[in-house]
């Protein structure tokens, strides 16, 4: 048999370097586990940090030199363009921050093993693949690489009942969702005869009204909606978030979300915009349901991680709202608004999870909202920082959360989605209530001695720098520099929106 050997240029290797780097280090970390001579956790951690840092530098450099058009390699298997670099950059940056935070976490002392680094790098490599591909099969492989690694990590990093439950739940439901997604891709392939996203959109133009395309689009949106954690496919989120060690929760809430949003932008804007009449109502419904129900369900949560899980469902709802506004009408807002929202959400979430990890250090168990009582007195700066995060999640100015919400409103209203915006407004008023519950606990109630004394976290320079940095970024992007981040979002979206 004669396979044509793909002609790969140097620029392909250049732009695929982060993925290659992480895959190789993943294998190295795995082998280090079995080797007797260098079986040291410490060296695995160093490999992890150095390779992530190198990958981040490469991606930033590539983003800087790339033009607005994207390059395709391996017949669409790999796309090198700003949108992809944007997603990759966020994912790697998040991974780096999470690694640094995990370094100071109690998990490291108790459960850390070299294989975890191997799994972690595999997850990242899968994510990096998924955000930079034009091919549905490669996209699926990237998704599964990321998901399977995450399933394993949830149950493996710190084995206890809660995390086992979260892992199993996520695994079972996630597999079903993956099957549905694959089913959708199969229908799309059957109808259009191609697996390339950009070619699907051309083919759809020729065979409009084909029911297999529509079925494929519906199944795809269900599969992606599951990974985005939109209501009614959100059931796994609170359990998985609660069960996972907090660092991993932070990673899932931010990097997973970035991955799936960038992939969704490609699939829906590039591939399926021709049948937007089919998926826009479905997505609009899921966005509205997420905005309302997730926020209402969050009201009743005691565990801080569950609360943030429901809040993350609601934030997916905002991004889905902008995704709904993508097809038809004015197109220049929706994609950049999603990307800007991702920037803001990632910064805020990492900060919030960093504080939670820091508080958890002494307790090895989930903290509940009541544990935060009186935090303002013991740790005023942590309390102020956490309230900045809460206000930003709630979308109050002068934080970046407000600007990102305004951008989403702009995107939605430019296509006259007034009803959805009103639902979003109601939802975010509800959300402000539970974000403020955290603030009320910290500032407005006196600490009860039992719970208050349990929280005696040690000082940690890493946490301080990360938390301080995200507070500074939130306030700066909300006041002085929103334009800078908006420009990044617009540039990254240019290859999709063509503007």
């Amino acid at each position, binding site marked *: 048999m004669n396979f044509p050997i793909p002609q790969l240029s140097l620029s392909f290797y250049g732009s695929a370097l982060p993925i290659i780097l992480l895959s190789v280090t993943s294998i190295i970390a795995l082998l280090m586990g079995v080797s007797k001579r260098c079986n040291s956790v410490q060296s695995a951690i160093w490999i992890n940090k150095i390779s992530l840092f190198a990958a981040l530098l490469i991606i930033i450099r590539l983003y800087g030199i790339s033009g607005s058009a994207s390059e395709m390699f391996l017949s669409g298997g790999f796309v090198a363009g700003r949108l992809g670099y944007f997603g990759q950059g966020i994912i790697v940056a998040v991974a780096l921050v999470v690694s640094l935070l995990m370094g100071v976490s109690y998990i490291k002392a108790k459960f850390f093993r070299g294989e975890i680094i191997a799994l972690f790098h595999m997850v990242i490599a899968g994510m990096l693949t998924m955000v930079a591909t034009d091919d549905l099969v490669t996209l699926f492989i990237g998704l599964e690489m990321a998901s399977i690694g995450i399933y394993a990590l949830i149950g493996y990093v710190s084995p206890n009942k809660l995390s086992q439950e979260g892992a199993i739940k996520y695994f079972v439901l996630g597999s079903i969702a993956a099957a549905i997604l694959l089913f959708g891709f199969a229908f799309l392939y059957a109808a259009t005869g191609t697996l390339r996203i950009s070619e699907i959109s051309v083919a759809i133009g020729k065979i409009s009204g084909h029911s297999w395309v529509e079925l494929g689009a519906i199944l795809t949106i269900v599969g992606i909606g599951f990974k985005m954690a939109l209501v009614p496919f959100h059931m796994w989120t609170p359990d998985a978030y609660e069960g996972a060690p907090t660092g991993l929760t932070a990673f899932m809430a931010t990097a997973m979300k970035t991955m799936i949003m960038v992939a969704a932008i490609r699939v829906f804007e590039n591939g399926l915009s021709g049948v937007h009449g089919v998926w826009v109502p479905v997505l609009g419904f899921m966005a509205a349901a997420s905005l309302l129900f997730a926020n209402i369900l969050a009201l009743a949560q005691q565990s801080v991680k569950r609360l943030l899980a429901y809040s993350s469902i609601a934030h997916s709802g905002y991004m889905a709202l902008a995704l709904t506004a993508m097809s038809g009408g004015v197109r220049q807002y929706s994609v950049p608004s999603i990307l800007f929202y991702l920037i803001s959400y990632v910064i805020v979430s990492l900060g919030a999870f960093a504080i939670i990890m820091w508080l958890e250090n002494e307790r090895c168990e989930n903290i509940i909202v009541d544990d935060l009582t009186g935090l303002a007195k013991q740790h005023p700066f942590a309390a102020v920082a956490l309230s900045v995060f809460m206000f930003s999640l709630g979308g109050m*100015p*002068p934080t970046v959360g407000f600007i990102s919400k*305004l951008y989403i*409103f*702009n995107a939605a*209203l430019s296509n006259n989605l007034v009803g959805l915006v*009103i639902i979003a407004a109601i939802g975010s*008023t509800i959300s402000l209530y539970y974000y403020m519950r955290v603030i009320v606990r910290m500032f*407005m109630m006196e600490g009860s001695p039992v719970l208050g004394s349990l929280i005696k976290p040690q000082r940690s320079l890493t946490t301080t720098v990360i938390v301080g940095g995200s507070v500074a970024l939130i306030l700066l992007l909300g006041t002085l520099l*929103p334009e800078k981040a908006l420009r990044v979002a617009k540039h990254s979206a240019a290859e999709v929106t063509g503007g």
Partner: protein
Amino acid sequence: MQLINSYILSFLVFMPLIAAFAVFLSPSTAVARWVAMGSSILVFLGGLHVWYWFDGTSPALQFVESYDWIPTFGVKYILGVDGLSLLLVVLTTFLMPLVLLSQWHIDNPRQKAFLALLLSLESGMIGALAAMDMVFFYVFWEAMLIPMYFIIGVWGGKRRIYAATKFILYTVLGSLLMLAAAVLLYFAHFRQTGVYSTSLLDLYSVRLPLSGQMWMFTAFAVAFAIKVPMWPFHTWLPDAHVEAPTVGSVLLAGVLLKMGTYGLLRFAVPLFPDAMVVAAPLLIFCGVVGIIYGALTAWVQKDAKKMVAYSSVSHLGFVVIGTFAVMAGGELSVEALTGATYQMINHGISTGALFFLVGVIYERRHTRMLSDFGGLAENMPWFATLLIIATLSSVGLPGTGGFVGEFLILMGVFQAMPVAAIFASLGVLLGAVYMLSLCRKILFGPLDNPENKVLKDLCPRELGYLVPLAVLAIVMGVFPNAFMGKTKPSIEHLAKHYKNYSLDFKMGYEMSDKSAN
């Protein structure tokens, strides 16, 4: 002078914020106190400077500063004052040193944070009054809630958490719908002109069909009505006022509530004039109901602070009906509008003073129940004098500011809608009844409670922040023109041209030529 005039509004807006950081980081409460006081006096002087240099013959927006903020959305950093906001800005800068003086004696570890919150609140208030860009305004409008939320929630009374939460949720829901309407307006402006801009000066030029105006006007009017608060959106106010610490109440009544009425004048009326004309009878109805309902509810209160809080509902009802007095010819009544803007200031001063005075006796006795007091005039003559002045100004006795405001409003509304004016004047009458009974129950009658016999009269520090308010209440009644003069062109401009409103502007650096005034 040119340099000062070019940046004076930015100074007023951001100086308190910078001071707030300094206060928060200062080593001791004593230092914090002086930093706070120094900066607020500096800002007050800045306010007076604006007042002095303001060109009272022109309706234009003055001391304008304009820079790009978020070019992607066409959002600009525009600050400016005209006759509608001038007095409110000066009032805000004037109240702040008094508020800080009333906090002078408190010395505990949390006090630094409290002073920092007060200063950042001042920043937000002045910013909201001076911002002339929709989004820029909105940032201040919402950011202002955060310090007030903490002031009520941390330093408030027993039900403070409930009150603070209610306060912020109520306001935010209204504001978000207003934001959505503002974004729709922004797109309407884009469709008509091809330019993306959120500058109010541009948005004034948008002409919308009545049906579109109605929706957006509703969103704006509800957001501002919640803030005013207009009946039936007033329920957060008594809670917030009663639970807030004294200075929180003073600033809430003095400035924050005025944001609602100011917003109606600045945004709702000129942006959606046709919808406003249609909705005016309903709004006047709500205003009149608010006047009478607030007065009747205040009458039966046993808690002095609650009584003053409900009197605010009643008094702001006057401002509301003054805002929407559409005359037969389609113009707004100049008298009513003048009265409304005047009443905003006057209410800020008299009600601010009343909250301070209630705070004074609460601090001494730790109760505000009217039944616990009586006969205080005997051993607290200064307190009695000042309470009577504040009360009389609040009920609108001739010779006080309250009279001027209410009289002008009633005169204007009578020409536009006689029935409303008649019912509203019932409110004046009721106001006299409950406010005087407040005075009577606290000051007169037998001094039989032994705890009251030992109460000390006002100390010099307390006189220091109460006397200026009392003097101002009287001066505003005797020389109203000194205050109204500069606001007149703007108000006439709004009244006559609200249907095709536009604002000229004078940049800050053009303001130095005093001889041209």
